């Protein structure tokens, strides 16, 4: 059975994409950037003590599931989240929900999804997708980071839903049980924008927000004394966390800039939000230049200028700071 009238949309990020599509399907039409913004999902964290594939965690957005939870809280949506003690129960429940004509969000590993490009299949367990229908042993999938809908066989999807380890999905399925059709977005925009600006500017810990970006720059400066192979892998890792499907730092700056632009229109073309949006687009461009510097350094046979790379990142942090300072000037006019 397939959910009727479902519209697949191509998104920059899996969780905001799933939530946007899910809400739209239930009558609340919010763009992906709106969902991302209203969930205050923009952040930065550098966690050198948490290793993934031997490399420290660099995150350009909030923790997995935080978009689902924040949207639920901020928009008065009621979501049902279910995890399972066994694969069999998890499979049966998915089939049951689909037979009711529901579209169902699921958390999965990337590695075990056969429709992912072979060269993109890494062991990352916090991917999100929508199951929108079933045809025998195949599921129809709306994976928001893909341009078109995909098909995935039952065994593979189960494997991907029930991997163990860091951020294990435990078969997580989610769907709304109540979605309001009318929401006054303005007050939510005001509070969520302030929340992002404040947390990026004033985190109490040196590993998050703008301080986290500076801390990462400091670690890059220290790479000169490290093994060269490791140094290159670490630099490449920073860019992968920034650019690869579902994690993209520069991409998230663009996504949030789009949210700020949409919000500006909501407030009759508010100039502060409009200006902050343009500034953040520029920051996104700077992140891409930073990525380009690293790609060149990795390919080059010459000594790597770690200082230049670190300096670039420092200047991005300074530029991004101006965006949040600007956002704190924002006052809702009525």
């Amino acid at each position, binding site marked *: 059975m397939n959910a009727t009238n479902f519209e697949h949309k191509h998104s920059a990020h899996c969780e905001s994409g799933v939530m946007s599509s899910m809400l739209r399907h239930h009558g609340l039409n919010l763009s992906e950037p709106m969902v991302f913004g209203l969930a205050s999902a923009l952040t930065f964290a550098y966690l050198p003590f948490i290793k993934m594939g031997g490399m420290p965690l660099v995150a350009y957005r909030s923790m997995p599931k935080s978009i689902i939870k924040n949207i639920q809280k901020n928009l008065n949506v009621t979501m049902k989240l279910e995890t399972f003690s066994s694969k069999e129960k998890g499979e049966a429940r998915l089939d049951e929900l689909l037979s009711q004509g529901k579209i169902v969000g699921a958390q999965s590993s990337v590695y075990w999804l056969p429709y992912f490009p072979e060269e993109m299949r890494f062991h990352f367990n916090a991917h999100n997708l929508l199951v929108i229908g079933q045809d025998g042993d195949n599921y129809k999938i709306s994976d928001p980071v893909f341009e078109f809908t995909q098909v995935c066989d039952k065994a593979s999807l189960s494997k991907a839903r029930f991997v163990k380890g860091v951020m294990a999905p435990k078969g997580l399925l989610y769907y709304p049980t109540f979605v309001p059709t009318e929401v006054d977005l303005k007050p939510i925009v005001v509070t969520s924008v302030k929340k992002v600006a404040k947390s990026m500017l004033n985190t109490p810990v040196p590993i998050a927000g703008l301080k986290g970006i500076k801390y990462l720059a400091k670690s890059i400066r220290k790479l000169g004394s490290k093994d060269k192979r490791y140094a290159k892998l670490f630099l490449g890792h920073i860019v992968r966390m920034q650019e690869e499907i579902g994690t993209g730092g520069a991409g998230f700056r663009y996504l949030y800039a789009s949210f700020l632009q949409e919000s500006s229109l909501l407030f009759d073309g508010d100039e502060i939000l409009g200006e902050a949006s343009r500034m953040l*687009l520029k920051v996104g461009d700077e992140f891409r230049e930073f990525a380009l510097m690293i790609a060149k350094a990795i390919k080059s046979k010459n000594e790597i200028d770690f200082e230049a790379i670190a300096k670039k990142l420092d200047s991005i942090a300074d530029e991004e700071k101006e965006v949040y300072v600007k956002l704190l000037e924002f006052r809702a006019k009525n």
Partner: protein
Amino acid sequence: MDINSVPQDDSSTYANNKKAIYARDEDGSVKVVGSSGWSVEETVTKQALRDLEERAALAYAEVKRGLKSPLYHHMYSIRMDLQVLADSTGFFKWTISKDFKPEVFAKISEKRLAVYAEAMGKTSEELKVLEEKNHERD
């Protein structure tokens, strides 16, 4: 970024898929554009893949020479490392390391082997042998 600057580098890592990028059109409004790839991203993705392949190739040679059990190569060939395998099986790292010894692995219980098989998406029989493979491109 302007819509016209969104890279369209046909990266092999995208395998003919497109990634959604938010970029600014002529009127200054930000919207989704599909990108067929970016050489910068391709460089770092392939760097990570190459690192995994090199580890798998080294493991292959060690198994071939009888220094390690086939399990050791299987781990790398599915892009895992000791940490990920430990997370995926629930086994302690030091007990997995013991199973990398050919003489220990030869006597592994069917039950323990089945846990590896489930976590690694292979059959117990497949795990016992070293696949014949060319490590040029894995």
